[in-house]
């Protein structure tokens, strides 16, 4: 009898221990989230500061830092200072993977923000497995439409209007304005370019000459073969859907060869300051070239966002030459700051993602098109405005200012509409 009681007692005791153990395992940790202390939030990025895509893109991360420094100087986010770590990946996907691992394992960042490049972000998400590790990657600097796939990239938020949208919108413009002319396309032969090809296909645009290039080969030697082929085929309109170094190389070689097509620059490779900075040709050579943007032109000082970002640039970015790269950096940083604020007084990676899903579409940003974030959508900006470069390298809208074209990354229509952008918040800080 005693033995039996003891046995029963032991069973009961082990069950209690077991329940306690299981219960303990289920209780969420009360410690602060990785990268968050009482006084700081650590975030990081990977961008090309040097290498083949360094020119131009090297300005993006310092511009982000300038905005974060401005926020910190004004009290930070919910009392915490933003600590921003920048890693140079040289636009090389394997290096992006290595540097992102460093950010997560060594620097222990709360989130990745503004990581740049399509192949780079694809490589990172695939090989560092941000999704399964629950590491947020906010507002990547790429317009690859595939990043809006929440199932595939559960912790990633794109911000840019997609390359497919861009190709659809410009494709329609080409059909309406260059019918009967010989059209050529130069594009990066990877996901970046492939995304655009799908958009052109949706728009029903066919190119007379189509020249893919392998990322990393976009120097003068490769550009010479492009221009020779385009000129030989008497192509009248050349669309370059590549990075700025590709645009610069093509424009420079064409100018030297006396080849003068109607240029169309994809938004990624269209920053006038960067193009001119890499060639010996004058900025006036860009006059008449078409391009698109979802943000105001960096030279448009009448725009309240441009004016504000220029002020931040002067004080916090050593008054660097202000251009679209700086605009993109600061605009992304402003979105990050709003996301961190909305994540709450004790932010977690989950609360950060939830905040963007629930409120991100309403946040202030310089972009003209609406933002599509919701619990079911990871689509950022949803359109572009079309402009033409003037003699000083400013992109001037071909339609009335504020006119934008919205569309999706599928086969939806291109719709001409008017921007209803939120006003700049007080002092340019998150509300």
């Amino acid at each position, binding site marked *: 009898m005693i033995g039996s009681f003891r046995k029963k007692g032991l*069973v009961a005791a*082990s*069950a209690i*221990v*077991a*329940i306690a*153990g*299981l219960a303990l*395992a289920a209780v969420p940790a009360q410690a602060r989230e990785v990268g968050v202390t009482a006084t700081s939030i650590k975030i990081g990025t990977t961008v090309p500061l*040097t*290498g*083949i895509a*360094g020119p131009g893109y090297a300005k993006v991360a310092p511009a982000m830092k300038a905005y974060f420094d401005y926020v910190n100087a004004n009290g930070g986010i919910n009392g915490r200072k933003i600590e921003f770590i920048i890693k140079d990946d*040289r*636009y*090389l*996907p*394997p*290096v992006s*993977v*290595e540097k992102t691992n*460093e950010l*997560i*394992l060594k620097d222990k960042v709360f989130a990745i923000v503004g990581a740049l490049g*399509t*192949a780079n972000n*694809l*490589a990172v998400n*695939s*090989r560092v*497995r941000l999704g*399964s*590790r629950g590491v947020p990657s906010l507002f990547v600097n790429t317009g690859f439409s595939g990043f809006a796939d929440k199932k595939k990239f559960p912790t990633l938020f794109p911000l840019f209007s997609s390359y497919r949208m861009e190709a659809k919108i410009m494709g329609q413009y080409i059909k309406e304005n260059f019918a009967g002319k010989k059209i050529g396309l130069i594009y990066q*032969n*990877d*996901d970046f*370019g*492939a995304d655009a090809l799908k958009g052109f296909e949706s728009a029903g645009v066919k190119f007379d000459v189509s020249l*893919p*290039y*392998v*990322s*990393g*080969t976009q*120097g003068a030697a490769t550009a010479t073969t492009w221009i020779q082929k385009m000129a030989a085929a008497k192509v009248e309109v050349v669309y370059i859907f590549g990075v700025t170094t590709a645009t610069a190389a093509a424009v420079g070689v064409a100018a030297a060869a006396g080849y003068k097509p109607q240029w169309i620059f994809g938004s990624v490779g269209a920053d006038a300051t960067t193009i001119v900075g890499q060639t010996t040709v004058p900025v006036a050579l860009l006059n008449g070239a078409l391009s698109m943007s979802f943000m105001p032109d960096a030279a448009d000082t009448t725009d309240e966002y441009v004016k504000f970002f220029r002020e931040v640039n002067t004080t916090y970015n050593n008054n660097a030459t202000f251009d679209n790269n700086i605009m993109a950096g600061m605009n992304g940083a402003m979105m990050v700051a709003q996301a961190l604020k909305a994540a709450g007084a004790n932010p977690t990676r989950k609360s950060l993602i939830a905040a963007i899903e629930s409120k991100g579409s309403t946040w202030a940003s310089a972009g003209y098109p609406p933002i599509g974030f919701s619990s079911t959508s990871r689509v950022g900006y949803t359109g572009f405005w079309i402009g033409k470069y003037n003699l000083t390298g400013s992109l001037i809208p071909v339609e009335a200012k504020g006119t934008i074209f919205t569309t999706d990354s599928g086969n939806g229509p291109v719709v001409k509409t008017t921007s209803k952008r939120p006003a700049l918040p007080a002092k340019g800080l998150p509300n």
Partner: protein
Amino acid sequence: MKTNIGKKTFVGLVSSALVALSLFVIPTSASANPVCATAGGIKSCQGKTSDGAGYVLQAPLNFNGTAFIYSKGYRYPISIPGAWDVAASSVAEQVPGPSAAIKQTTAVALLSKGYGLFSSAYAKTGWNADGALKTNVELIAIWKKEFPTTKKIVAWGESQGGFITQALAENNPGLIDAAVPLCMVGGSVEAALKMAGDALWGVKTFFDPTIKGGGYSAGAAGVGEQLIDIGKVAAALTALQGGLATGAWPATSKVPDAIKAAIPSRSALTMVGQMAGLPSISSHVDGVSGPGDEKSLAHAQFVAGAAPAIATLQNLSDAAVLGILLIADLEGINGGRVFDNNGVDYEKQLGDAKFVFSSALSGFDATDILLGVLKAAPRDTANPAALTKLRAMASHKGVVNVPTIAMTAPFETVTPGGHVQWLINANKANVAAAKAAAVKAIASGKPATTPKDNLMVIWNLPPAKYTTFTATGSPDTSGPAANGTKHCNYTSKQLVAMAEIGALAAADGKLPNAGTVRSLMRKAGGLSFDRTFEAALLKFYATE
């Protein structure tokens, strides 16, 4: 007079004792009592198990009660003239290590700490997990009989030996107290066969279709066929090395000339490595370093375009040769062809490499063309009966019964981290299922205990940068392979640290705490313990 042997002197004596082993007379009859002798403070014994496997037992006179049973890795079952002597490799190895010197240092260090060491040569060279498992069970009993003061047994092994170690822990958890599989084959040998087989088939398809690649004859004729294949692979890789800069393909390639003219051979080479699941870094190529100024176009082109191909070339020299020998070995064991790639979608296997290495693959268009070559190529077909036999060979369930500390290098050539990742995933699922069952049992008033997660994985990561360049801008391959690359390329300090972690686990009956492990790892260097790290699964598991 009290003997006072200094530590330094003791180490010297232990070294002498290890060397003296070869002087023993091995009993000729299986299962006879071992022949023992004591020298330099070490008692050493030799004998044969009932299946004829030679074994060695060693313990210092101050044996601390913890002994390590070591299972060695796969040793090629045929001799390769000038490169591999099968007779010399069919011996017991007491400890892991990539060289005789590292083995010696490791063994001396462990014996000096009072640990016992024992191992067998296995009854058969080549893949022999099923046989070695039985040998080890018998050997543990022999050890305990010879050294009755034994309190704890730690099983450890590398490569095939890591597989055997995990199998021993799954099937005979009562015989051992902790397991330390190193650079292990995880799950089943078929996973390793697929990686090596895909790599070999890729080399054959792109660069030399006369490579036999399977269906080897029995006996001496088959050995000859394997040696011819090894020669052909070596010739193709040499030609590819010559074509790295020019893009030229080996003369033996039968890929259409138009493709060879448009796409450099290094892109096909990169594709072979990536679709097989080989690492994109190698013993001398870190994948992020380039020659000259980092800002230059040449630097970017090297890192993006050339480095993955050079790394693949280095890795293939191991993987393709292993492919030939492992395929032939497993064909011999199972009585017919065992590698089958009918229906394999190599585009799916290429996976994210299509964009991660788009430059090395010469862009999407070139990638699609090369994939088209693979799609159109004849496939290898296994003998169904042989494949059934292969799949009935020893395999893992992914159940971790005893405290297990695995170490592997995620980017190593022969058994990349995907093997251990399989074990991590399987263990996670098993622990979760056990927890769910415990919760259910408790809810219905039945007794249950909290299931333990007995697995700890330590990653051997290479330095972030280790490539050095010659004056002509090529990676310098003259130095030793970087730690964290090649196969089971561990330092003696790392191996001793793993042994000590295993001994701690055996003593406590549970995994050591993270602080203790990190402290030992720091001293060893090159090791990382991060539960969130995930290695890429092998193609065998990722695409099944």
